[in-house]
């Protein structure tokens, strides 16, 4: 029997431990009333101009938000919430002052003011402002829980309005296929921002869970046994280790954000009449309820005062990049011999053998197929639990990779054709690269391998290399090695020695090339260039070149042919520079090596407009380079399928030579 809490002891939540909420009306009402008071306090602070940005309250949904989170009592349980997260966060953390300070943009905020109302990270709790964006991440984290076997489940909480997002269904499918302990919670408040659910959601809500073979429940937050039933769903997922789908019917008492509620007074009256928090309070004797409410008001006033005393959040120094200081690079034996494909495959075998946290996800990896380009062959046989052949679900597996990384794994996600990276781009752009710089304790050591490049007649959607797209994402590391780099070493450094989300491009035409250094030497990495030592830039060694060609990835063999021809037929000394690190650009390494060169050609397989070559050229120009710069690459048109057409679009030997000769 849980002892009845008193008004004096209840508001002792310090944000350092999860509040204990026994199943008795006084405790539940007391906490629900605190959440409501917090939301009303935030709206009041907003009206006084004390909030930073916007906020979304859970007025009317307090008990709904408490139900599942209250029952998540394992220390390895994790929660992925959404824009409307205050009730979840407070039930998980009890950190009222930290939440107020965060939304006020104060130093004492739970995320130091970096996150704000929508983006909170606190122990196992994460929220984000992209609808449905966290669902695959939650599945990945649940996969890690399953693999670790140390208990803990994951809850991912969305609203009914988010059921229009495709990633939700990828995530349900992955959860079902992988059979992982994740509870999808749909808080069905019948409205999506301003749009009623009947305009946004077809068919049945519960059938969505059932369709994936997932145990499914539907409860209402005004049911007398709501908390018991929510806890039962949590227990079922914990007990079975299998996914669950819980729909909670609730009603939003407040606007979506502020002043954006189009609902009529009649409808609002009905919602107020239903309000389960008020009904719960009415079950208490008046004196007890009033004592609780008085105590809560005092507690919230103290929390606001505490938040107010904190100064506005400030950077000591605005960071120039999110990568932190360079770590010393361990000297290692270069693995040479064999083809690029064999080198990458051997590196995958080595890492999986030596590092139990390494996990590989990708489509069609299973033996004997071994992935579309056979880079992953013989891996599912050797490591069936850690090399997973996945559904066709690029956004889902990139998201799952993020969740695995956040759970301490070193995931590698193989994307069959780099063209499909666009499907996972929200996961990269809004999630993988955002969390680590915003939240001190979060790292996302995820490597996304992607076979890329043209020259095979595969056509417009199977021939591209979106390195420019990726390099323009702040905080995303982009590696694109050549056959002259230690291909396996690059991959091992990306997976094991670099803690930041990374896209690792592999050109299809390089797979069969011998992986030989052939006399290239690494440029000295400039100390201010993050990761330049881990992912070196190679140089073919010409002391006073007439011309310098900078190329990477699949352009490397082509520029070697061009250089050989120019040296033989045109009596030129041709320097070749092969970066393997595209972003963060090894800017000062390149400037130090090339600022005195007379002519620099940037040979690119991707369109030159807004490209990587433009960034390199701009960096050189800003550093005072006064030689002649030329970019050679394709125009911004789709890559046609016919080999003869493709050859006309992509730069080839003759075009490179002709354009280079124009410089003389």
């Amino acid at each position, binding site marked *: 029997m849980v002892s009845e809490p008193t008004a004096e002891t209840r508001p002792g939540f310090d944000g350092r431990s999860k509040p204990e909420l026994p199943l008795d009306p006084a405790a539940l009402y007391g906490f629900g009333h605190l959440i409501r008071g917090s939301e009303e306090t935030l709206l009041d602070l907003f009206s006084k101009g004390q909030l930073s940005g916007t906020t979304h309250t859970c007025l009317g949904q307090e008990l709904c938000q408490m139900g599942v989170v209250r029952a998540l009592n394992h220390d390895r349980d994790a929660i992925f919430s959404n824009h409307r997260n205050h009730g979840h966060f407070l039930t998980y953390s009890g950190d009222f002052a930290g939440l107020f300070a965060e939304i006020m943009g104060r130093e004492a905020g739970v995320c130091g003011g970096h996150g704000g109302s929508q983006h909170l990270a606190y122990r196992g709790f994460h929220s984000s402002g992209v609808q449905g964006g966290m669902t695959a991440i939650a599945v990945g984290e649940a996969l890690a829980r399953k693999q670790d076997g140390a208990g803990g489940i994951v809850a991912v909480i969305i609203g009914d309005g988010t059921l229009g997002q495709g990633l939700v269904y990828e995530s349900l499918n992955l959860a079902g296929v992988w059979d992982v302990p994740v509870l999808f919670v749909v808080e069905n408040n019948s409205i999506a921002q301003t749009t009623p659910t009947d305009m946004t959601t077809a068919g049945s809500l519960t059938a969505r869970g059932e369709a994936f073979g997932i145990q499914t429940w539907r409860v209402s937050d005004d049911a007398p046994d709501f908390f018991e039933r929510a806890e039962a769903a949590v227990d079922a997922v914990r007990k079975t280790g299998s996914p669950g789908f819980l729909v909670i019917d609730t009603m939003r008492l407040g606007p979506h954000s502020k002043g954006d509620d189009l609902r009529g007074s009649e409808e609002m009256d009905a919602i107020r009449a239903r309000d389960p928090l008020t009904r719960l309070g009415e079950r208490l004797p008046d004196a007890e309820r009033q004592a609780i409410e008085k105590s809560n008001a005092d507690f919230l006033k103290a929390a606001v005062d505490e938040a107010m005393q904190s100064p506005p959040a400030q950077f000591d120094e605005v960071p120039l990049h999110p990568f932190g200081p360079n770590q010393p690079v361990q000297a290692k034996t270069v693995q040479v011999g064999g083809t690029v494909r064999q080198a990458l495959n051997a590196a995958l075998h080595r890492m999986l053998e030596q590092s139990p946290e390494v996990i590989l996800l990708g489509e069609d990896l299973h033996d004997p197929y071994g992935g579309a380009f*056979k880079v992953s062959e013989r891996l599912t046989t050797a490591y069936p639990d850690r090399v997973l052949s996945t559904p066709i679900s690029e956004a889902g597996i990139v998201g799952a990779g993020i969740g695995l990384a956040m759970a301490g794994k070193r995931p590698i996600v193989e994307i069959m054709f780099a063209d499909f990276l666009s499907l996972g781009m929200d996961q990269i752009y809004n999630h993988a690269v955002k969390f680590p710089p915003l939240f001190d304790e979060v790292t996302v050591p995820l490597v996304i391998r992607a076979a890329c490049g043209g020259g095979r007649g595969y056509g417009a959607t199977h021939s591209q290399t979106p390195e420019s797209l990726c390099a323009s994402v702040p905080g995303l590391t982009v590696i694109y090695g050549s056959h002259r780099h230690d291909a396996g070493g690059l991959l091992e450094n990306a997976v094991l020695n670099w803690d930041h989300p990374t896209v690792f491009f592999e050109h299809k035409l390089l797979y069969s090339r011998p992986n030989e250094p052939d006399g290239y030497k690494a440029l000295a990495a400039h100390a201010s260039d993050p990761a330049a030592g881990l992912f070196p830039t190679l140089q073919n060694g010409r002391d006073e070149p007439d011309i310098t060609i900078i190329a990477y990835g699949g352009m490397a063999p082509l520029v070697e042919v061009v250089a050989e021809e120019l040296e033989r*037929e*045109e*009596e*030129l000394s041709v320097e070749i520079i092969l970066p393997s690190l595209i972003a963060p650009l090894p800017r000062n390494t390149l400037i130090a090596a090339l600022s005195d060169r*007379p002519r620099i050609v940037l040979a690119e397989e991707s369109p030159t407009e807004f490209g990587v070559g433009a960034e390199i050229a701009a960096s050189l120009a800003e550093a005072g380079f006064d030689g002649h710069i030329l970019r050679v690459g394709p125009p911004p048109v789709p890559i046609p399928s016919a080999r003869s057409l493709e050859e006309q679009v992509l730069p080839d030997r*003759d*075009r490179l030579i002709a354009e280079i*000769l124009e410089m*003389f």
Partner: protein
Amino acid sequence: MPRPIHVPRINNNDDEVKLIAFLVSPGEAVKSGQAVAEVESEKATVVVEAEEDGFVIETSGTQGQMLDVGAVLLWLGETPDETVPQNDPAPQSVDGQAGTDRPTAGALALIGKHGLSAVDIPAAGARLKVSDVEAFLSGNAPPAEPERPPAPQFGAPDAGGKSTEFSAYEAAMLHSVSWHAHEAAATYLEAAYDEADWQAFAQGFRDRHGLLSSPLVPLMAYQLVRHASDNPDLNSTVHNGRKFVYDRVNLGFTVHIGGKLFLPVIHEADGMNAREFVDAFAGLHRSAMRGKLQPADMKGATIAISSMARWPVLRHMPILPPFVSLMVAHSAPQDGRSILGATYDHRVLDGAAAFQALNHLTSPDDKEITSK
């Protein structure tokens, strides 16, 4: 009509396969289904079979060679003497590239570097090459200036000092007037000032010391000595391409006697106080007037001053004595305004240094003059 057998694709993603061997030779008859060649990829070895009867006319490729998938591996004819159709388009040449008489890019780079024109340079072969440009350059280049042995320098400083290398900055100035390497690069500048302060100062000194004549020029000379003592560059010269910094300040001053100009020298003037200096100045002046100057009295000047105020000359440009880098010219005042000039050796001093020295003399520095 011969028919081709193509290089087969073995794997979806391999565009080349390796030729293991042809199993037939040109002229040989083959049957449909007969193995004609073996090729392999990373994954597998494949036997290529003839699809019909015929005679091998031509094979393409050698053992071990990588062949493009889809290229012709072998031509099969109905008779052994058919010829392979020659309908391959002629290889396209790149505009302005091989097959033209365009100079090599290397040659163009060299031409550009030397500001030449390609039309002026004869080519030994079809294309103008680097070697042609180099030959042209060696034939047309202006004859290289023979390395001149350093001309023996006439004379040497005849006062003690220390020979040092010029600093890089100093050497740069020396080289900027390089045809004067062994002679002073004499340059002149001047500053205007009001001599009233000097006159008052000289009068005070004269009164204090009971002197017969005005010590204005000797005192100005003494202030120059003091200043040179503090600024050794003023008391330096060039010898054999090296900087020569004098140990002591020996002040030379002009004396005009009987249509002759003398430069008696007050040796080790930096060791004297003002009164000693003024006396030494007067003593040498007297010796000159009496024709008693000894050769030693006129040697070893390290810095100098000349006055033509008594004529009265308003401005004059003195000639630098040998191995002296600064000579100050004092002239007569006019309407309360005087010109102080200086000839200086631009190999050693730049205009700013000379002007600063001159400017320092435009008013008496009581402290400097009386400190010793």
